[in-house]
């Protein structure tokens, strides 16, 4: 997959950005030139910044009538050749799910940033949560894959949004940045580099845009107006987009490929980080804002001579099975603290033989260090 290094549109330097602002800047740096969205707390600042920035860099911004229209316009723009994105929070993310399935099945690159709030339903709109992790993977009907990343800082809102575009273009798959209210509104210093590496979708004239010789291949993607006479459909289709709604082989082949093209490449997609894991007997597996609390706790308990470390999941989907399984062989106990009722803990249990404890909190607040330490002491 060819990439290129480009100058960032925002001057290199250190900036004091909220997570939402940083994500918008990461998107612009990645080449995003289309945004469609609908206001929703706690993601709205991201849309407001995109409205300003896209005008400055010559992109297209539109506030649509709802979230269904927003993601649909994003998919339409993507086929017209744009790197396109939207951002939302729980209720809007729910509305977008059918179209996310459409993007997965038609292999449309697009980026969705979910600044998670305390759900379910309207829940607590201004409070934090991370209850949409399973929804990111399973929200639309049928068998498909997406990529979902989990930032833990303003810097990573920039870095991972940029990476989300690169992955989305490389694999032609909807890619999500699963932020949360605390990260979206957290204001801290970030470093914007002078140049960034970006990936663009592959184009090959005359080649089938919906099939590949390899069982896990990513076909080239032309745009509307290029004379390729594209036929795009959310019904089961052959390599050139003809509907094949009663051919069992075509359906099985297509469903299999859109799953394998992600799962078979998961070693290059998945990113994790280890902290103080070498001699650890207890490990935290953590992601998002909770990873910040977790790292603080790990460092503090190390001072009390605890043999404790931490694995941070920067990628949530495809799930970091290998990193989790290896950790599970090395430690006695694992604790997964998260702002939901154990969504990632359940995944971890699939891959490890050791004890997995789950610290769950759904009160609209971030998990405090003392709560985490108390849980560890009881374990």
């Amino acid at each position, binding site marked *: 997959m060819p990439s290129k290094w480009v100058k960032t549109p925002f001057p290199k330097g250190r900036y004091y950005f909220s997570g939402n602002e940083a994500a918008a800047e990461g998107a612009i740096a990645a080449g995003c030139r289309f945004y469609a969205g609908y206001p929703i707390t706690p993601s709205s600042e991201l849309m407001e910044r995109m409205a300003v920035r896209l005008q400055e860099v010559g992109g297209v911004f539109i506030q649509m009538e709802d979230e269904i*229209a927003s993601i649909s316009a994003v998919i*339409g723009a993507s086929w*017209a050749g*744009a790197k396109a994105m939207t951002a939302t929070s729980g209720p809007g993310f729910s509305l977008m799910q059918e179209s996310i399935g459409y993007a997965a099945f038609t292999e449309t690159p697009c980026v969705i940033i979910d600044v998670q709030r305390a759900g379910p339903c309207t829940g607590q709109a201004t409070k934090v949560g991370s209850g949409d992790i399973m929804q990111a993977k399973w929200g639309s009907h049928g068998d498909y894959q997406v990529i979902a990343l989990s930032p833990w800082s303003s810097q990573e809102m920039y870095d991972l949004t940029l990476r989300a575009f690169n992955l989305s273009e490389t694999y032609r798959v909807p890619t999500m940045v699963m932020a949360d209210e605390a990260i979206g509104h957290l204001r801290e210093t970030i470093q914007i580099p002078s140049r960034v590496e970006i990936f663009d979708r592959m184009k090959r004239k005359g080649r089938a845009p919906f099939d590949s010789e390899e069982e896990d291949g990513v076909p080239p993607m032309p745009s509307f107006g290029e004379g390729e*006479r594209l*036929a795009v459909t959310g019904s089961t289709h052959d390599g050139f*987009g003809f*509907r094949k709604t009663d051919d069992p082989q075509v359906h099985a082949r297509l469903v299999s490929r859109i799953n394998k093209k992600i799962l078979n490449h998961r070693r290059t997609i998945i990113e994790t980080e280890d902290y103080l894991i070498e001699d650890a007997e207890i490990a935290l597996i953590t992601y998002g804002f909770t990873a910040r609390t977790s790292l603080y706790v790990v460092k503090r308990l190390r001072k009390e001579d605890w043999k404790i470390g931490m694995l941070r999941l920067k990628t949530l989907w495809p799930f970091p099975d290998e990193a989790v399984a290896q950790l599970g062989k090395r430690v006695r106990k694992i604790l997964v603290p998260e702002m939901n009722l154990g969504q990632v803990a359940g995944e971890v249990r699939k891959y490890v033989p050791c004890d997995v404890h789950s610290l769950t909190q759904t009160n609209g607040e971030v998990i405090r260090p003392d709560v985490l330490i108390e849980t560890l002491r009881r374990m």
Partner: protein
Amino acid sequence: MTRALEKYIRPGVKSTPFCPGCGHGILMGLILRAIDDLKMEMKKMLFVSGIGCAAWIPSPHYNGDTLHTLHGRAIAFATGAKLYNPDLCVMVVSGDGDLSSIGGNHLIHAARRNIDLKVICANNMIYGMTGGQVASTTPKGSRTSTTGEGNPYRPFDLCKLVEGAGATYVARFSVTQPILLIQSIKKAILHKGFSFIDVLSPCPTQYGRRNRLDRPDEMMKDLIRRCILEEEIEGLTEEERAEKIITGEFLS
């Protein structure tokens, strides 16, 4: 004449998927005749459709770019494509249920924005593909598979709806008025702004057989008898007027 239109059909397409007596095949041809008359470049045409029988009019049959989307969302997808690449001539062809019921919100908002989309609503006044359920366009009193005693509710007047929402070209014609309809489609294509044509298209399979118009030709004749131009209303009695369908250009 048929040969002349063949270049607009995607290679590999063998036949239309429509039932005997369906009006969608006629509309499919009339849109191409309008495109042919205007010498439009198919390479720069994008046809967007939703879900339902009418969504298959362009997809995959037309030899331009076709985008067959989700139920109700055609106009939202089209909005994104048109905004990002304004050089595309973007035409939305979909059904009445798709555009005005599940997709009704996108319809009125696109009209409000007066975005340059050419929306052709193939209106058969019923949900055809799913088995003939009542639609937001089904006439009051009509029998459908979900209104056995007759539809208790009024239908939308789609032309008034989009005009009220801000559309800048609005017309209604039946597939039984082919010359007028071709002219109207041509005007919509050339119009800069949100264009909407409500095209009446008979569905003998789902609508006709439940409403005493069993044979395809009976439905055609019924449309020919009932569709009149705005200027022909004068002199009709209240009773005569009630059963007529007023066609014409309402805003251009």
